[in-house]
């Protein structure tokens, strides 16, 4: 069977996923199953986030998904608080200027 040559394939390169996992200083070694599982989780994660961002784009009646769609999708999805540093909260200009002066 051809299928047995590509077991439960992932659309992300295994070596790269493994490299990212191993870049964590606390990680010594990562088994193939773990690499595979994280890779698959990423695929689902991207899928859900993009779906959510697409909803935002449709609400604005646009034909392109843009940065703020993803930003809004993140803010409206539970368990994605860890992404707050990646998409910082937009704060009023006056507040930003005040913080800059500190």
């Amino acid at each position, binding site marked *: 069977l051809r299928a047995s040559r590509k077991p*439960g394939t992932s659309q992300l390169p295994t070596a790269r*996923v493994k490299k990212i996992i191993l870049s964590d200083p606390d990680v010594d070694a990562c*088994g193939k*199953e773990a690499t595979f599982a994280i890779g698959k*989780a990423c695929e689902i994660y991207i899928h859900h986030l993009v779906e959510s961002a697409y909803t935002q784009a449709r609400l604005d009646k646009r*034909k392109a*998904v843009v940065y703020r769609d993803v930003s809004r999708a993140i803010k409206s999805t539970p368990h994605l608080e860890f992404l707050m540093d990646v998409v910082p909260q937009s704060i009023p200009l006056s507040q930003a200027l005040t913080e800059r002066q500190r």
Partner: protein
Amino acid sequence: MSTHADQDEASSAPTPTQLPIANVSRLMKQSLPPTMKLSSDTKLLMQSCTQEFIALVTSEAQERADAQKRSTLNGDDVLYALGVLGFDEYEKLGRVWLSRYRLAQGAASQSKTSK
């Protein structure tokens, strides 16, 4: 004013390993109708988000491995991490993927030994 500062920093400092933007982009497009466009900064953002996700799951999985005094992360550590972090659906799907993966791995090694 500082919206693109992070990207400027990233181009001059050594960047951490990232997933290839082509793969990320392809996965993103698969979740959209073909007529929908994607801005390039969205792809970069998704790349960063996925990076953070991997880091988070890895960290949690490593804690479980540590607690069980193992030095190598395994599939169950990852599934456990997904559940603990609130990605319950991913944990359930993960069990299915892993069982298929294990079946396929078993079949592959059987075909090797039969030669």
